[in-house]
């Protein structure tokens, strides 16, 4: 605080107002700045030490090429059908292709717990949102882009994929399924 005068924010300050801050303000600014550095450091740190990062492999892909790749994936590993959607069980470590389109996640996936897969996400029409329920793992799915995330399911069970990006009136019907087995 300046030593001799106080004025409100409506009063034009006269003369030199570039005065040293009070000790209390300096302390708070220092704490806030150090905290901002902590916030910054956490992100690179988690890339080295933590297990949840949205890095993945990123490519441009045409919607047609991606749909063709999904079809090939389904053909190769299909094991059944549920609600008219193919159920696909890829081998451990495989590249898994999931397609978002109005208003469906295609196909149903059958994965193994504790095994790493590369889960590819893309769309053939609009932006969609991949939200694995109830785990709460959320990613943006953008047409023209292939997002390949290395995932390791850490528990078995029956999961849902909810679309969390508005994609038209049937958006709320866009629910997919992932089965994870021991």
């Amino acid at each position: 605080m300046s030593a001799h005068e106080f004025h409100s924010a409506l009063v034009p300050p006269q003369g030199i107002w570039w005065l040293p801050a009070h000790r209390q303000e300096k302390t708070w600014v220092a704490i806030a700045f150090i905290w901002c550095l902590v916030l910054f450091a956490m992100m690179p740190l988690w890339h080295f030490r933590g297990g949840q990062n949205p890095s993945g492999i990123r490519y441009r892909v045409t919607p047609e090429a991606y749909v063709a790749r999904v079809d090939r994936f389904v053909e190769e590993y299909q094991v059944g059908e549920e609600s008219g959607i193919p159920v696909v069980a890829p081998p451990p470590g495989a590249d898994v292709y999931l397609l978002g389109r109005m208003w469906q996640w295609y196909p149903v996936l059958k994965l193994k717990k504790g095994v790493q897969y590369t889960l590819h996400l893309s769309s053939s029409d609009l932006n969609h949102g991949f939200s694995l329920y109830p785990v709460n793992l959320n990613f943006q799915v953008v047409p023209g882009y292939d997002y390949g995330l290395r995932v390791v399911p850490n528990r078995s069970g029956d999961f849902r994929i909810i679309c969390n990006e508005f994609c038209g009136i049937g958006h709320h019907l866009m629910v997919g399924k992932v089965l994870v087995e021991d």
Partner: protein
Amino acid sequence: MSAIETFAERFRTCPVTGLKVNRDSELLIRANAVVAVVAMLVGALAAIGLVLTRWQAIHLLPAEMYYRFLTAHGLNMLIFWILFFEMAVLYFAGPVVLGCRQPAPKLAWAAFGLMVVGAGIVDATVFMGQADVLFTSYPPLRATPNYYLGVILFAVGALIAVSLFFASLVVAKREKTYTGSMPLVTFGGLTAAVIAVITLLHGAAVYIPTWLWSMNVGNIDPEVYRMVWWGLGHSSQQINVAAMVSVWYLLGGLTVGGVVVNEKVSRTAFVLYVLFISMASAHHLLVDPGVGPAWKIWNTSYAMYLAVLASMIHGFTVPAGIEAGQRLRGYTNGMFEWLRKAPWDDPGFSGMWLSLVIFGFLGGITGVTIGTEQINILVHNTLRVTGHFHATVVGGTTLAFMAVTYYVLPLIFRRRVAFWPMAKIQPYVFGAGLTAMAMGMIFMGILGIPRRHWDSSFAGAPFPVEIHPASELVQVLFGIGGLLAATGALMFIAIAVTTVFFGKPVTAEAIAAGASGLPSGVLRLPAQSHTGPLADQVHQQGVKGTLVLVGVFFACFVLYYFTNWKMLSFLWKVG
């Protein structure tokens, strides 16, 4: 007519603040404020429909109407209400605070006209069902070309109005209508205006090609659109922050004689907003396939965290200025007498204080946390995002603008505030409702419920979804909070509209008699400058109470942040 008569006609001296108010700016402030409130009415009515739909037990609107209302709500609240009001703030912070004439008044009215026409076109296309594209209008989702045209016209109008604010700074300096440096309120307005230019240029870069694309000219890459659009979408919220903080400083001075504890610190914090905020829009792409981790970390860390630093500085200096101001008024006992003895029945003060608290604790802490690259995996496109920005934009900016309206009505419209007893509780009703609603949304998001989604029961979907049973409880919190907040908004609109059209005039006698409908700072404006032994004494005492408050804030921040990392660590491994 002599020049002196013309001059006398064009200016009046505000009997309360002593500011020299020119007629043109005053009328522009009135017009912009009135249209802002009309936009808020449209947005608030839509909000009631939205709350009653997302509250699954009621589920009022059909899907198509829900998304249409959601589009209208976002545009009217985030863009029209706030930007029209911000234009009023700029006409005040420039010509009125500096006591100069309004530069190019005709052009200012043309800008206002463009904004009104643009907003009208946007609302018309939305309500006619030709633009169910939500606030973000991500391609390849497509609206009718007129929708984009409306946005462009509105933005051009806003850009002209902002330029006139810059012009007023030049005019005031040249014509020497003030001495010394510009007051902090104007400086804050200047940073808001600079950010507005950056924002509107992003808007042009994204909406002009999108408009052409909507007429089948050229192509739009969905990811590039997302990146450039957020240069508009996020920076526009930073105009709000800068304007809101300026309003905090303004109201601190008007209500309790709040002071600027250090000009250097406060102004540097405003400059940090300008320098770092536009790249901070990167945090909207944290789980996108278009950009890599280095880009995400760099842009969010250097840019966003230095803007966060700015907010944390204002979060100290604003209450510190109020504490020092109150201490100068003699409330020197103990740590918190200054706060206990504040005018809590002045909606200008209570609204400002609630805005500060809700913005900081609920909006700021949640926002910084979800803007972290990895934590965003948990949050992206869930209702937590919506909860966060309702706390910042509605609990923060809107509430601050409501609070300052209680001073704009008597000082600029020169009317006593109608329904005064209701006005005294309005900020509390709105603030409480908003807090409950935002917390409801945040908990719903933590339970995995998506935003922008019509049916949390997922009826008719190929696979059933069993939402966590706790969500029913938080939906009630959200629903009741939402209705209460809407009630607070409608109270505000009723007060503002009635005052403007039927309010009793403010007279010297009314002020002297302490008439109803006049906030405490209008009845008795606290001293705005202080020198001498008392000021020295307050310097010596410091701001102990504020230090305790920011200490509590910091503890909450650290706790919430690391709790989120813990939650993240339970997820599937992903990379």
